[in-house]
């Protein structure tokens, strides 16, 4: 379970993408997510796909690893495709499957939506693959900084995010540990009727909650003991800086957007 899903996992390499300012990455990906909806023909989709694949290559992470990590998502993509195949009614009827007419528009639409979906997931997972959770929260804190003017608790929000991100792997480990301990006491998580398997979750969830609450309390205590008092007047060990590399990234992404508008109809 923990082995197959890569969403939210950070893979350190020495690529340029890793060295970009996290804010740059967030802004570019945010814009990409918006502008992917502007693509409306094969060329413009291809252009964006090219950008996504090129970025994936630039991370120096093995493509095979990324592709395999997205396997749980493939199911969703294929499901979307099939749904569109049967539901969309545009263009001439091409052929029939078990009495249901398949329209030519449906195939095109199915492809377009699945590709869009795939690109969205690929690009956003590149973000987490190349950026540590701490960098992400720092970036979000910095980007949301203007909201402070309307008394929005930006620092607290960022802290909450970084704490929850920090504890995902810990909880995963804990889950694995407890499920192994309970499996050793004869709990069967993997086979048997659904009803029994749902029942088998109780001995897993109770200890997990108990230790999560305990850990939260300990963390609060440790923070208090070290005089933590929120964002006011707090300095940073590593300040985020927009460097030359980031301007190059923005510039190349602008070219991608200009290309998109030239290619779309």
């Amino acid at each position: 379970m923990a082995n197959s899903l890569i969403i939210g996992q950070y893979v350190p390499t020495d690529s340029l993408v890793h060295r970009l300012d996290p804010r740059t990455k967030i802004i570019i990906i945010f814009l990409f997510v918006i502008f992917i909806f502007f693509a409306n023909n094969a060329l413009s989709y291809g252009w964006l796909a090219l950008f996504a694949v090129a970025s994936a290559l630039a991370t120096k992470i093995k493509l095979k690893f990324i592709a395999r990590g997205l396997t749980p998502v493939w199911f969703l993509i294929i499901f979307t495709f099939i749904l569109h195949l049967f539901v969309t009614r545009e263009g001439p009827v091409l052929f029939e499957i078990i009495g249901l007419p398949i329209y030519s528009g449906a195939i095109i639409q199915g492809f377009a939506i699945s590709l869009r979906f795939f690109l969205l997931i690929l690009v956003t997972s590149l973000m987490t693959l190349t950026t540590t959770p701490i960098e992400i929260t720092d970036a979000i804190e910095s980007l949301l900084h203007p909201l402070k003017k309307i008394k929005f608790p930006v620092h607290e929000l960022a802290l909450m995010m970084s704490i929850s991100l920090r504890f995902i792997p810990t909880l995963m480990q804990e889950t694995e540990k407890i499920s192994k301990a309970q499996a050793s006491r004869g709990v069967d998580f993997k086979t048997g009727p659904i009803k029994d398997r749902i029942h088998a979750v109780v001995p897993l969830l109770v200890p997990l909650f108990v230790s999560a609450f305990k850990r939260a309390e300990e963390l609060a205590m440790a923070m208090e003991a070290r005089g933590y008092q929120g964002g006011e007047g707090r300095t940073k060990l590593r300040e985020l800086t927009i460097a030359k590399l980031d301007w190059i990234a923005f510039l190349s992404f602008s070219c991608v957007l200009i290309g998109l508008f030239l290619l779309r109809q």
Partner: protein
Amino acid sequence: MDISFKQVSYIYQPNSPFEHQALKEIDFSIKSGTFVAIVGHTGSGKSTLIQHLNGLIRPTKGEINIGDFTLKANEKTANIKDLRRQVGVVFQYPEHQLFEETIEKDIGFGPKNFGVSDEEIKQRIPQVLEAVNLSPELLSRSPFDLSGGQMRRVAIAGVLAMEPRVLVLDEPTAGLDPKGQQEIMDMFKELHTRKQLTTILVTHSMEDALKYADYVIILDHGQKYMEGTPAEVFVQKEALQRVQLDMPEIIQFIQSFEQRFGLTLRYKGQSIEGLAQEINQLLKEEVRADG
């Protein structure tokens, strides 16, 4: 049950950037009824190794035989539940696995999963409570009301109630006070002898390995580094230091005593009292020889 590992390797997350080989071609065999200590530095593969013993993970390469059960790569073991009933595992910090409303229910949870009848469980509970030195008055209380040490005992009782033939202990005394540590270890040793169990103890403590085990296996970076009886293994100072392990105190003492006084004292499993008597004897002989 006899246990044997043949060329066992285990790799975590193969074919990913996080690939990590935890065990490399491990080979050993353990005779039924032996008390074995597995010793090694953090990250040497001890915990990975013991997870093979009840089929929680299967070897990436190689073969494991535990009694009549066989574990091989890419081959599902059909009667895995039977294996888990016969091999009881006490994990590190086992108190984290408690979840039931009452201590009685939690202790009975394991046996119940393995199809032991309610009457039989009722009979077993007082026995295991006595073994872990807990008062029967606690049975109706919640396990979460107890102190850490008591919770540990309840969790151990839960494994003992399964009446396993093989007992696997992963640092069972970590984080307990010295008195509690000794009590628990003595209890395991007593149980081992009385029920003729095969016991596998993973430990950082050379003292425990020396005191309780008949056989010691030392792991280093996923490979078997040394094996033998405690008396054979623990006298090899240089070899132990190479993997950042210390000799047990009593052996250290004997070696420095021999160096300092030029006398021979062999380590043969004697207690501190026995050793003191031996030295006393030796000194008297010396005095007599001089006089």
